[in-house]
């Protein structure tokens, strides 16, 4: 078996929901030993769907199964004194703790960062929260919609005469999970160099705000407040999703699609694509400012042709002409996509109850240390093994179970 990049890391994961579990999924997929501590009732995401046939079942949540691959599950109520004792035994053998409670709640249980740092000076303590551990909004709460709103990205998304629009798929938690993953590895690199653990403080709202491409910059460098305009970039049109004969296609002429000013060239790729070389004489083909402002006239030149050609043919032809057009697949399209199939992207896993699902596979391929793919754990499946390692025998576990600690 090949080695994994983080196979020497041990992580205790108290987080629930999406952001923390996505962070620790990455750690686990990279090879870390992640012990997922769930309250006896299970991670909240076990109660969120989708479920097969829409029948809720704690072992069949699609969200949970997606986000908890390769982890071990131990049930433990850390709101009890006995739970804290056990947690500390696990932390004594861990490099990293990940938690996603609102600021202050961990302190209430006696396991806040300041309370643990003396006993566990080498521990990387990562907290993923709505707004972070400091600042005037630290006790406010966020979800993906709130994070999108505060990022400036939503203000620039949608139709000009309608309300701003949030991006689908609840993206904020994934941005935060990635930021936490990078933060933890940075703190580990710091520890390797200087020794010592530390607190890593990641917030949902900042994780999405950091994704701003140039809304803040346009104000700070031009005084311009950018507003939504059909989700278009300020430096070109067409660069948008447009209707084709059989669906939608992303039209992106790129740097070379229209006649390049000052350069000598033959027919432009856009004219070739649209099968009308006369278009290169049209003033709209010659400056981006004109295309941006007179986009409806440009649409008149483009949309009829798109409407009579299927998406795949449009994209393939455009790509042959070196224009970065793209498809607009649904989940169903992705599962059948020939490119992803050839790259073996999806990984089939079997879950309790015989549920077989194809999961999104490794987000990147490492030649020496391929990421791992293993299923998510059932609730408490590793209680005996993990707690046994820190000295609890079967009899102890029985007592703890009776008292609702595990």
């Amino acid at each position, binding site marked *: 078996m090949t080695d994994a990049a983080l196979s020497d890391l041990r992580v205790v994961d108290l987080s629930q929901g999406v952001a923390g579990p996505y962070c620790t999924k990455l750690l686990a997929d990279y090879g870390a030993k992640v012990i997922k501590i769930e309250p006896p009732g299970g991670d909240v995401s076990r109660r969120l769907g989708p479920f097969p046939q829409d029948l809720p079942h704690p072992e069949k949540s*699609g*969200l949970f199964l*997606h986000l908890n691959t390769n982890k071990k599950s131990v049930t433990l109520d850390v709101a009890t004194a006995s739970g804290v004792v056990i947690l500390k035994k696990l932390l004594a053998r861990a490099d990293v703790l990940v938690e996603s409670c609102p600021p202050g709640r961990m302190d209430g249980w006696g396991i806040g960062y300041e309370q643990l740092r003396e006993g566990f000076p080498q521990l990387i303590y990562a907290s993923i929260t709505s707004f972070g551990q400091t*600042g*005037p909004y630290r006790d406010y*709460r966020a979800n993906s*919609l*709130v994070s999108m709103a*505060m*990022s400036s990205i939503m*203000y620039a*998304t949608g139709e*000009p005469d309608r309300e701003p*629009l*949030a991006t*689908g798929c609840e*993206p904020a938690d994934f941005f935060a999970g990635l930021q936490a993953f*990078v*933060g933890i*590895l940075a703190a*580990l690199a*710091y520890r390797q160099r200087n020794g010592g653990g530390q*607190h*890593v*403080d*990641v917030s949902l709202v*900042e994780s999405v*705000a*950091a*994704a*701003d*491409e*140039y809304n803040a*910059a346009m104000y*700070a*460098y031009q*005084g311009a*407040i950018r507003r*939504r*305009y059909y*989700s278009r970039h300020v430096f070109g049109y067409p660069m948008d999703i447009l209707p084709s004969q059989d669906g939608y296609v992303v039209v*992106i002429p790129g740097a070379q699609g229209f006649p390049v000013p*000052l350069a000598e060239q033959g027919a432009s790729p856009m004219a070739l694509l649209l099968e009308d070389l006369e278009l290169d004489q049209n003033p709209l083909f010659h400056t981006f400012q004109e295309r*941006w*402002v007179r986009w409806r006239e440009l649409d008149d030149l483009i949309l009829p042709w798109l409407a009579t050609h299927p998406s795949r043919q449009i994209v393939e032809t455009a790509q042959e002409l070196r224009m*970065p*057009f793209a498809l607009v*697949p649904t*989940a169903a399209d992705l599962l059948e996509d020939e*490119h992803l199939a050839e790259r073996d*992207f999806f990984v089939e896993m079997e879950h309790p109850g015989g549920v077989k*699902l*194809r*999961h*999104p596979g490794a*987000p*990147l391929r*490492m*030649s*020496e240390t391929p990421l791992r793919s293993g299923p998510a754990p059932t609730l408490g499946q590793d209680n005996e093994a993990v707690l046994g390692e820190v000295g609890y025998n079967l009899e102890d576990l029985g007592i703890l179970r009776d008292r609702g600690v595990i």
Partner: protein
Amino acid sequence: MAELPLDGVRVLDLSHVFAGPTCTRILAELGADVIKVEARQRLDISRILIMTDNDTADQPWNRTCYFAVHNAGKRGITLDLTAEQGRGLFSRLIPHCDVLVESFTPRVMKAFELEYETVRQLKPDIIMLSMSGYGQTGPYRDWSAYGMGLEPASGISAATGYRGGPPIRTGMSFTDPLTGVLAAGAVLAALRYRQRTGRGQFIDLSQQEGAMALMGTALMDYQMNGRLAERMGNRSSWAAPQGCYRCRGDDDWLVISVENDEEWAAFCRATGHPEWAGDERFADVLARHENHDALDVLIEGWTREQDHYEAFHLLQRAGVKAAPVLNGKELLLDPHFRERHRFDLVDHPVVGRRPVPRHLVARFDRFEPRVDVAAPLLGQHNREVLQGMLGLSDEELASLEAEGVIGSEPVLDLPEGLTFEMLRDVIRELFRIPLEKMQEMGAVQAVEPDYRQQLGLDEPAGGS
């Protein structure tokens, strides 16, 4: 000054625009020495995107805010990798570096004869990260890709849009920063592995695949129930009411998300409408889903009288998730972001003191990831890098410059008889954004000439 986690790590960065530069920007914030390599014949295209003060007069390629915010903290050199001499110098730099990042389609590195197998001969433990749009293998591997196409390509756009409307892109290259952070994590993991084993490796990151974790729920639901994600506007499949509501003011909006009965009761109290709590149409979460349209009318009747920031504080203090929809200016001025140093101020030799955002938002108690220097001018560090690291003489540098292999001005492929000077006015017009017209059309909300005062950019130095 505290040591940073990546002090002593050197990164050669061939990536352009946003995704790759986000990755290397994070590595720079963590202390790595990032050397960005461009060619005079092929600049990072973001050097022509969005000129400071919309003014293209002087060194336009050094004036764009786009390049400035995503490349602060890096050094910059020019090398023409299509020329044998340029490739030779690049190959001599490789042994001095730990990480090589590039974001071309695979055919480009092949044409440069800089594929991993070649690179590792020069530096056996190098970590090479290739982050093209569709990865190094498979039928789409040579498809060129912009971020604005990769968000739809990863499936996200099909699930984004107004209810009943077509798929909509986010108003930016949304997956670029996502895959950029993902890439930075991969480099950190590979560096840790190298520290443990002495081994480098090659990383193939397909940006399409990297973003697809967001599709988990949609992929599962389709496999479990044959259902495809609906476009729901700003609504949610569980919270109700949830939406974006117009406030007092010209284009001010507030998002609200009410997840359960307790929050609903708190919302009705906070807005001064206890009667809504008793309204049977909204009695429980199912009823609120069912009568969402009617509820939206009532809620917007309230929000229209509210200031978006004040309503945000009012609702959050009552325990209801809400937020003002911030524009770029408000993002810069928000007190929470300011207190947590969302932006650092740097002095740029051409455009003066400006804020640059941090790309890594994680905060640490033992070190502070930040950048102190502005993005590099084109070829700014040619001498420093090529003399300092490779020991080239002044004469050698001069001859490389004369041959166009290095330099600090772009080389334009001009028709015979035309010079750069003759075209200055044409170029000047070419890269201006039609801000006045955009304002008329509604794509720009305002242009404020006093923005430097509003942001305090002319005040004495000392933090953001």
